[in-house]
């Protein structure tokens, strides 16, 4: 019965999002909604194109991945294969702390330290850019990526390593050619879950990206993501209005995106269990 609850919740969430956004999607048109280039919900007539938001989300996610993925894999390798026991426990503890820091705090520090820093180094008119968002999100997704990849690397059976070392390979060659390959499905799952976290992150992104709903040409301009749009505008809408329903439609799209990412991650996680 209690187990059923989680299924019920998933269905309820989908159902409520769908019902709230249905009339909007029907009247405005899904295609126009997704490909529209202008998000001016308050102007007259309003325009609900979420293409800039989607591109904003994708751009930031992509940037965060480029930063986070190599760092995470390398750190995970170091922590699980190279670091001595004591250091490993300490590093794992720090990573757990990292995961526990609330996103508003990270956003706040990003605003106070990172944003002025980026403004100065790249000589920009504002430091609230997609690039800042990518850095903050990369940092936030690293604990997930590192700890799950670390688990995957750690669970590579000892005999694989022994086999390679017995053939005369150095430990590093073993790690690079054998361990990494064997742990790959787990690492991919870790990356997918990390990406899930990046796309879903709201508060920190809202605080450092500047929230301008333009289609960005470089990573050094302000952007606005789907999550930030919901969080920022929900408070100002009139219940039941087009604008209100359009935010639910964005929620629905986010729900579907994470759903797909999860399915892929789950597929890879299942692969390692075999």
């Amino acid at each position, binding site marked *: 019965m209690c187990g059923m609850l*989680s299924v019920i919740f998933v269905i309820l*969430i989908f159902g409520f999002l769908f019902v709230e956004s249905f009339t909007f999607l029907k009247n405005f048109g899904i295609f126009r909604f997704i490909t529209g280039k202008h998000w001016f919900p308050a102007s007259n007539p309003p325009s609900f194109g979420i293409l800039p938001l989607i591109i904003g989300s994708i751009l930031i996610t992509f940037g965060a991945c480029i930063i986070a993925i190599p760092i995470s894999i390398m750190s995970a390798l170091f922590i699980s294969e190279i670091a001595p026991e004591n250091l490993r426990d300490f590093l794992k503890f720090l990573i757990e702390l990292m995961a*526990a820091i*609330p996103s508003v705090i990270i956003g706040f*520090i990003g605003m106070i*330290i990172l944003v002025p820093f980026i403004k100065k180094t790249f000589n920009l008119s504002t430091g609230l850019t997609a690039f800042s968002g990518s850095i903050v999100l990369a940092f936030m997704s690293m604990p997930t990526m590192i700890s799950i990849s670390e688990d995957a690397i750690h669970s590579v059976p000892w005999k694989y390593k022994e086999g390679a070392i017995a053939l005369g390979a150095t430990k590093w060659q073993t790690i690079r050619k054998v361990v990494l390959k064997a742990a790959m499905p787990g690492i991919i799952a870790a990356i997918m879950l990390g990406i899930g976290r990046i796309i*879903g*992150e709201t508060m920190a992104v809202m605080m450092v990206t500047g929230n301008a709903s333009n289609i960005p040409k470089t990573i050094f301009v302000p952007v606005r993501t789907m*999550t930030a749009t919901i969080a920022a505008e929900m408070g100002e809408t009139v219940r039941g209005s087009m604008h209100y329903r359009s935010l639910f439609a964005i929620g629905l799209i986010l729900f579907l995106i994470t759903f797909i990412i999860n399915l892929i991650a789950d597929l890879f996680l299942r692969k390692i269990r075999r």
Partner: protein
Amino acid sequence: MKLNPKLTQKISYFILFLVTVFAIIPVIIIISVIVKNGLPAITLEFLTSFPKNGIRGGGIFPAIIGTFAIIICSIVIICPIGILAAIYLNEYAGNNLLTKIIKLAIINLANIPSVVYGLFGFSIFVVFLRLGVSIISGALTLSIMELPVIITTTQNALNSVPSSFREASLSLGVSHWQTIRYVVLPSAVPGILTGTILSIARISGETAPILFTAAVFYVPHLPHSIFDQVMILPYHLYITSTNVPYMPQKLVFGIALVLLIMVLTISSISIIIRIYFRKHKKW
């Protein structure tokens, strides 16, 4: 030119080490910056009085109380449901289609963006069930969000109890439920506790889901019941750092420090419990 494998190994180890340090440094920067700037703001008055001058002065007492109210409410809702669900899934459910669907649902629930939970909570609890923007709406929303985490960690804890304990108990004619109640659960308590406390830490730092379901900018009094709106620390930090002009920075850092201490204390407790029980594990 082919490099000497030994040398390559040394160089690569060093690079990996540097990268790891690079990944860790921001945590240390964040914590030290907040502690350094926030500490001067923390006084008894700051912790125990109401905000003044349109939130730009005074203390954060109502926000602290509001955060605790939400946390306690969520624990009351989530613990029984999450733990019972995990027991059912782990000990009773057969390996059939329904179980598979439930497991898939749990995984998906775990990864839905928190702001989508906020939307959902708003439309079901605040509007549909007419609970309004209130502690209970916020707590329910957070509970649904944390449900998969509690279920998964509890299941892991139950799984780590050796199945031989179950067999030994069952073979004595003890019923299935008594076996779970007196043999499996006591052995799994440390794991369940760790998971639960970690979720509490997460709940206390979350902002997006309570943005439209529980939190408000300012209330001049403490909440009287669970149907009241409240001020909440993470939201307070967000608002003061972005939307309040001429906000004294010292106070913002003070709020950040209080929140950070709260969250890190709660999660450290769970980490310590885990380390303690791992050392004293009897099997």
